[in-house]
């Protein structure tokens, strides 16, 4: 449906978007994930036609959109600050897009009602938008974006302004509403938990390009490089140098490590980053090829498991592992890692 091809944009003289390309297909919700300042919102505004790209094209069903002004694109856009019209009440805000399409009055009324029902806010028609709570404003903004039946929906950090509990609750609501409306959607966020909850597919925007894209669990299991692993907070990242192949061996300041990698093995002598996932630490170290030993600095109870922080030596950052049994603070602990649970990653983009 939507194809974004090689979009370029500079901001105050510096490159912001550096050839962004991706597609969105029917019924799909994609999540554009990136740190703040990575150009996510700018990209949305370019797709919406509110800003012009300096290079590249946006296509809808193979047709270029460059000459189609924003108001004729029929893309719904939900703004980060909601941008609810302060001089209009809830119903008038939702009706705005329908009025722009010159729909008959009766139909507008009926659709506004339906939209309010979707967001579970019937009875709020005449309320001032300035008097709504953050969560209510967020839902009205969503209703306003979907009421005119856009052919695609774009949401710019829609939960960014809300507190944590509300965010979790609303992200599930959003997901079910997006599934119900069945329009393709682009969801922009910097929060990976939110992205996991919403997305069919994740696009990771970094340094002006799409660094990696794929289903959430794919990216989680197979981060493309060290930056991706760090951004997703996948675990302990330790610097090292490749010293041997089959088995892939990496020299680190905690000793020789046998690791695995996706695809081709990196060349001998190349710098690398190894990822130890906290959840994959085995307490039965006897069966494991690799052993990690350190002093227990701290232990946090997390329900099912304990998060234990180890200090291995002065040169390395603290090392976290997830254990099912408690340990003593101050004791020396050794955990084991299977080679297939240690991922060797490219150092790029750090």
């Amino acid at each position, binding site marked *: 449906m939507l194809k974004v091809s090689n979009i370029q944009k500079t901001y105050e003289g510096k490159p912001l978007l550096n050839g962004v390309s991706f597609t969105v297909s029917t019924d799909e919700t994609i999540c554009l994930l990136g740190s703040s300042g990575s150009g996510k919102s700018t990209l949305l505004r370019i797709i919406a036609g*509110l800003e012009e790209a300096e290079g590249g094209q946006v296509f809808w069903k193979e047709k270029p959109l460059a000459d189609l*002004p924003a108001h004729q694109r029929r893309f719904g856009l939900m703004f980060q600050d909601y941008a609810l019209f*302060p001089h209009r009440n809830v119903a008038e805000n939702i009706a705005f897009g329908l009025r722009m399409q010159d729909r008959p009055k009766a139909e507008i009324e009926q659709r506004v009602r339906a939209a309010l029902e979707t967001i579970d806010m019937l009875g709020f028609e005449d309320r001032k938008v300035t008097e709504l709570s953050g969560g209510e404003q967020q839902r009205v903004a969503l209703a306003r974006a979907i009421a005119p039946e856009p052919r695609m929906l774009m949401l710019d950090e829609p939960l960014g302004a809300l507190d944590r509990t509300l965010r979790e609750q609303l992200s599930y609501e959003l997901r079910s509403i997006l599934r119900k409306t069945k329009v393709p959607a682009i969801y922009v966020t910097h929060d990976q938990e939110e992205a996991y909850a919403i997305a069919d597919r994740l696009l990771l925007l970094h340094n002006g390009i799409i660094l990696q894209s794929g289903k959430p669990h794919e990216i989680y299991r197979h981060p493309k490089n060290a930056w991706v692993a760090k951004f997703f907070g996948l675990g302990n990242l330790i610097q090292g140098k490749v010293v041997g192949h089959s088995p892939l061996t990496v020299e680190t300041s905690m000793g020789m490590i046998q690791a695995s990698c996706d695809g081709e093995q990196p060349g001998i002598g190349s710098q690398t980053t190894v990822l130890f996932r906290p959840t994959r630490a085995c307490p039965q170290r006897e069966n494991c090829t690799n052993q990690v030993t350190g002093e227990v600095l701290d232990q946090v109870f997390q329900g099912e498991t304990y998060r234990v922080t180890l200090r291995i030596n002065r040169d390395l950052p603290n090392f976290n592992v997830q254990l099912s049994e408690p340990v003593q603070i101050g004791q020396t602990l050794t955990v084991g890692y299977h080679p297939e649970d240690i991922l060797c990653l490219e150092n790029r983009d750090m």
Partner: protein
Amino acid sequence: MTDRLRSLTKKPTWRALIFWLLPAAFLGYFFYQPLLALFNLLISPDWGFRLAELDLNRLWQPLWFTTAQAALSTLLTLIIGLPGAWLFANYIFPGKKLLKILTTLPFILPTVVVAAGFNALLGPRGWLNLGLMALFNLESPPIQFLNTFGAILTAHVFYNTTIIIRVVSNAWSQQNIRLQQAAKVLGASPWQTFREVTLPLLKPSILAGTLLVFLFNFTSFGVILMLGGPQFATLEVEIYVQALHMLNLPLASILSILQLICTLAITLGHNKLAGHQKMTIVPRSQEIGTRKPKHTLERLATTLLVIILFSLLVAPLASLALRSVVKLEASRGERGEITRGFTLQFYRELGVNRLGDLFYVPPITAARNSLIFALITILITITLGILVAYALRQRSPINAVLDPLLMLPLGASAITLGLGFIIVFNRPPFSNFRFPILLPIAHSLVALPFIVRTLSPALQSIPDSLRNAARALGAPPLRVWREIDLPLLSPAIIVSIIFGLTISLGEFGASSFLTRPDYPTLPIAIFRYISQPGALNYGQALAMSTLLMIVCAGGIFIIEHFQATSKDWL
């Protein structure tokens, strides 16, 4: 070709230029041309004026007096205004709301009304003198107020105290209360907190307010002419006298230029200070941090202040209104016993031309003229004001150049403007029109800076995301303007209309140069009537002033209402 045109309109500088076109042409023709003509008058040989032959005393004397009276007036204003600001920022007291509305009145009251008010209170035919005469059986009024230096100072204090109160108490109550609390927790006594935290943060606002008051005192004209009389020659009065009575246009021009340089320097200083202010402000909701006075001393001080402020603001205006419906002395040509007491005679007579003079039109005609001028002024200023506001919204470097040029009329006095108009436009085509179109044009130049300062922030405060949202929802550009900009601007537009109305209705300086005898404005008519003998003339002047005051006061209420609404929105 159309593509090139389209891409041109997307460049901010081109868009800014398109919006600037009309306002810049208007300002260039009607403001900068007359201004340059003043300079030209000095160097052009046609007038036979040589700078070297100029007696410098004729410049220094008015300049010295203007500065001295402005400084003294400002000092007196601070003495009453600063405690007033303290009162407003820190205390809750009965009548606060009413007093707050009253403090906005002087902002908008025409000088003639204020002058008439003090005349009705302290003048030879005013309440105080008549009362004292009746009480002690005196032959002549015991208080000599009119035509004294004290009269000028009093009126200036009346006008400007509220500026200090508003500017300083706003800054005071917007100060983050946490700062004071932090100082207290760190062990500062209330006095130390005030000296170490509150006062340093207030300083820019106090300085800015002081400079603003000084500027107003420096350029004050109507008050000095009507209450002080021509012997108190400030620059403004001297320009007026030299130009209209002595017909010495070169001297008037050089005085104007001197005045312009001074006001420009003051304005620049003020803008610099006022610009700095914004940084320290963290808004807090109203009435937080205010309390009822507790100690006896506090109660005494606040009560005294409230009484002083009330009497300063209310006494002249109440005397004016009351005096306009009471007959106390004989009309001209009236003999024998006069009936004293309540009368609406002055109001009824407003439509009658008693003198039967061709040039002395009945006052009601003056009111009608003023309304017509005001409507034209509103039309011009709103159109230009909206254009300028949109021009200023474009992110273009040319705004940095054009914006100060627009604000210059704020520094130039109305007298300078009137003088320039006479020099440049006293020839065809303008001298051919029977209708004095120059008058509303001059009013527009006086009002435009205020209106731009009202509209531009209102426009800037509309977040772009609202327009983008409307566009994404399918609104074409013009529709976006109608659905988003216009309704969100409407409170500011209404406030601007009121500004245009009241400024035009009350404008005295430029009008005194530009009115034609058969087309007087309301303030000019009041000025003529109040200085004439006879109870009827006096009463009519007061009646007209009262009507003007009511219109302006009504305007204030509307402004307050809409400013409250727009705050609610954005």
